[in-house]
């Protein structure tokens, strides 16, 4: 009997294991569905980039982010700074001639970056958002002094902005005590979807 080449015979010892994989959905299809935004309409006129107040702090311009998604370049787009710098001011969406909700695309990309555990390009911004959510979970309302304190503890940026913080305290712009929701269980209940699933 002729020996079958182990590569051709999957049962032979030493044969490479063949794993049939599910083809992954295209990045564009996933983002389009989750953001309910048809970003294929983008023809890169760059109106969004020209209007964005924050483009100087970004590594990719807003339309470049859309391009990366169109090309399916998952790693660069989920790991970029732009998606975290975007504050969702909707200047871009208002200027887009194709009516693309660019801020919604950024939102979905941020959520995907957290879910897929990629290295976050602006970890301090994610820390800040999480501290806000902690405050909301605990009190139902944002307690800004607590948020800034815990954010400082997390990022260890003790000395930055001390002057601004003191001025705000002096002008009574930061309440020492949080304002609270009475039916707090109605609020903490809602947080299960974020902390328990994605973290």
């Amino acid at each position, binding site marked *: 009997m002729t020996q079958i080449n182990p590569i051709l015979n999957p049962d032979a010892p030493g044969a490479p294991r063949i794993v049939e994989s599910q083809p992954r959905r295209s990045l564009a299809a996933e983002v389009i569905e989750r953001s309910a935004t048809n970003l294929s309409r983008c023809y890169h006129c760059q109106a969004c980039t020209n209007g964005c107040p924050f483009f*100087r702090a970004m590594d990719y311009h807003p339309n470049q982010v859309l391009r990366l998604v169109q090309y399916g370049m998952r790693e660069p787009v989920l790991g970029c700074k732009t998606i975290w710098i975007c504050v*969702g001011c*909707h200047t871009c969406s*208002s200027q887009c001639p194709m009516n693309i909700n660019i801020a919604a695309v950024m939102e979905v990309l941020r959520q995907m970056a957290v879910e897929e555990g990629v290295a976050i390009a602006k970890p301090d*911004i994610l820390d800040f958002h999480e501290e806000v959510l902690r405050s909301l979970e605990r009190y139902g309302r944002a307690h800004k002094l607590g948020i800034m304190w815990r954010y400082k503890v997390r990022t260890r940026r003790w000395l930055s902005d001390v002057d601004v913080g003191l001025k705000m305290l002096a002008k009574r712009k930061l309440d020492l005590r949080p304002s609270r929701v009475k039916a707090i269980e109605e609020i903490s209940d809602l*947080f299960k979807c974020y902390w328990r699933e994605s973290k």
Partner: protein
Amino acid sequence: MNTYPRLDFSYFPGCSMATTAPESNLSMMRSAQFLGINLIELEDWNCCGSSSAQTLCKNLSLAMSARNLSLAPAGRPLVAMCPRCLLYLRHAQMCLRRDPETHRALEKRWGRTIDLDLEIMHFMEVLVRFGLDRLKESATRSLHGVRFVPYYGCTVFRPPDLKREKYFQGEMENILKTLGAQPIATALSYRCCGSFLSATAPEVVTPLVDEIMDSAVAAGANCLVTACAMCQLNLEIRCTAGTKLPIFHFSEILALALGAEDYEGWFIRHLVDPRPMLQELALVA
């Protein structure tokens, strides 16, 4: 005090108005009182979720705003002053209209109805729709000499879904012009103030804020009036420009025109004291 019939509205303050900018809340309440507009605070309201919930979890963001909608009693419109809260509340209502399943699930969860036809309005829209005649009659101080930049920031920009809805752009000018002030249209009225980046990346925000302030100075304004309490804060704390103009909350300048006398308590909370400018115009003593 005028003799108009009282108008009742539900009122959603939101965290900024309730904590970092109480002067905005106080002056709005004072204006409403002058105009016979009765703002009834939503019982046990919670934060609208703000940018952070929207960034990290859509369901959470929707549910937090929806809970506030579930607290609004039937039969009177819901008024918000914070433009971001307004956006999230309107957005939640629109999402629930499109998603009856989530709507029912949330109603069941809290045992309260969520009225999908509830009217959600900005305080400025209330003024223009119900109060322009009241405004003219109640005004006791003319704002003549106030050359203001109507600073909206990003507050009138909204996602394409909400683009066709009526919003409050231009109303600040309409209202304050009625009261004698002069709007300056050539400054950066619609440039975003930097929002939460002010807390995490001040080096990004400072140049933006300086540009906004410089444009206002160059346009010949003597103050800025903001639609959003967070803009007011960011413009004050992040500005390093040479000339710093005072920045009013819209409700402060409105209440002043209507004859409010308890302004000291609001203005001492400003980092740029507006009193010298107002004294020059003989608006305050």
